[in-house]
């Protein structure tokens, strides 16, 4: 026998199920009057610093069918590359930018949508700068443990080329699965759960 470490096990994940919107976006699901608004529905206000952008996309299953019951959360740095979080020790983030958003995919089209700002660059563990990116977390019926991935920007070719996380993707043909197509201030980012274009998901 040895001394016990005294650690606990993380609670096991269970699927968010088909009714996740009741709990996380009740107003969207038609349950009004309980919360004033759905948490994470707005990320920016009219004083937020940085370039306004829109991100839209879908989550597609192994047949290419969009999920109409998924829920996506994003987490990103502000325009100066700082997170609005107590664990951010490098400085104070823009107080008018939460950095966190939540969007259900549309019940008809399967589209999600975020109105946010382009994030600044933040350092990798060794101090090198990562390319601007947004962390994504995807849950839905049929997903047993939330999926983590990142969105990188299609108009940041130089920064993407030196990004230490993208550099670790062995099969280079998969890198484009993390890069959102740019069209002015609109970016499109589809997430493929399976198949030839399966998005690179992370074990973070």
């Amino acid at each position, binding site marked *: 026998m040895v001394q016990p470490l005294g650690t606990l096990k993380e609670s096991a994940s269970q699927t968010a199920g088909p009714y996740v919107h009741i709990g996380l976006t009740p107003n969207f699901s038609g349950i009004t009057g309980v919360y004033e608004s759905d948490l994470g529905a707005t990320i920016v206000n009219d004083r937020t610093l940085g370039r306004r952008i829109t991100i839209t996309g879908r989550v597609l299953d192994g047949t290419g069918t969009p999920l109409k019951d998924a829920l996506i959360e994003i*987490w990103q740095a502000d325009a100066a590359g700082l997170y*609005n979080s107590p664990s951010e020790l490098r400085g104070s983030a823009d107080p008018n930018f939460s950095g966190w958003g939540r969007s259900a995919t549309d019940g008809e089209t399967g589209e999600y949508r975020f109105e946010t700002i382009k994030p600044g660059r933040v350092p990798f563990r060794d101090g090198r700068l990562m390319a601007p990116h947004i962390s994504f977390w995807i849950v839905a019926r049929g997903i047993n*443990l939330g999926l983590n991935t*990142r969105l990188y920007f299609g108009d940041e070719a130089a920064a993407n080329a030196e990004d230490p996380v993208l550099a670790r993707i062995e099969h280079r043909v998969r890198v484009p699965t993390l890069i959102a197509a740019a069209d002015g201030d609109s970016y499109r980012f589809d997430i493929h759960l399976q198949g030839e274009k399966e998005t690179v998901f992370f*074990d973070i």
Partner: protein
Amino acid sequence: MTDLSNRKPETGAFFSRDRLWHPPGLTPGYKTSVLRSPQKALLSLDGTVSEITGPVFGHSILGELDNDLIHNFAKPGESAIGERIIVHGRVLDERARPVAGALLEFWQANAGGRYRHKKESYLAPLDPNFGGCGRTITDEDGHYAFRTVKPGPYPWPNGVNDWRPAHIHFSVFGHGFAQRLITQMYFEGDPMIWKCPIVQTIPDKAAVEQLVAALDWGNTIPMDARAYKFDIMLRGRRSTLFENRMEGN
């Protein structure tokens, strides 16, 4: 968003996730997972500042009835129908430290097993006084509590005759985005737990038992509500003592 805690914020990376303890992505007994589970290996990434940080929510977002599902959707003077219960417990990390300021959001079916949702087709009736959502934030010691009615079991389209055991869905935020977790709470003594294909996605019996709330007789309120105790464990952080630092820092 405000920091609730006077403690020094923790900034270490998280313990790696034990993916043999969690359900795998592909679990054919739960049919929907077959086309929704990634088939390629995940890219391992030791936490950067993007994963170590996360949103923190202040008590100011909470309404007075947010942790009372018996009343938060009910007409004035009325209340939801069902067995009145209190669910309480602590949010701890893997190092057994309390997680203060953790936002918990929960949702559930009504006492008859019916969800208030347009895609729900179970013939059990809606309760006009029950919405089915609530939320709260843990205190300095990681404690939380809410009041609700015990949800009913319900049938669902998977196998010909699959039923979910009574359960409450929980969404949990810790302090880092990598701690984000959704899970479900089950009730002590329910024989249906062990028949459920969604429960069975979890490979380890001990991991299932960790999701079963105990009837907490001591905290039952006489003539009012029984109590169930449900602790939630989130990933722990490494100590930062000997972490790699940037050269020159």
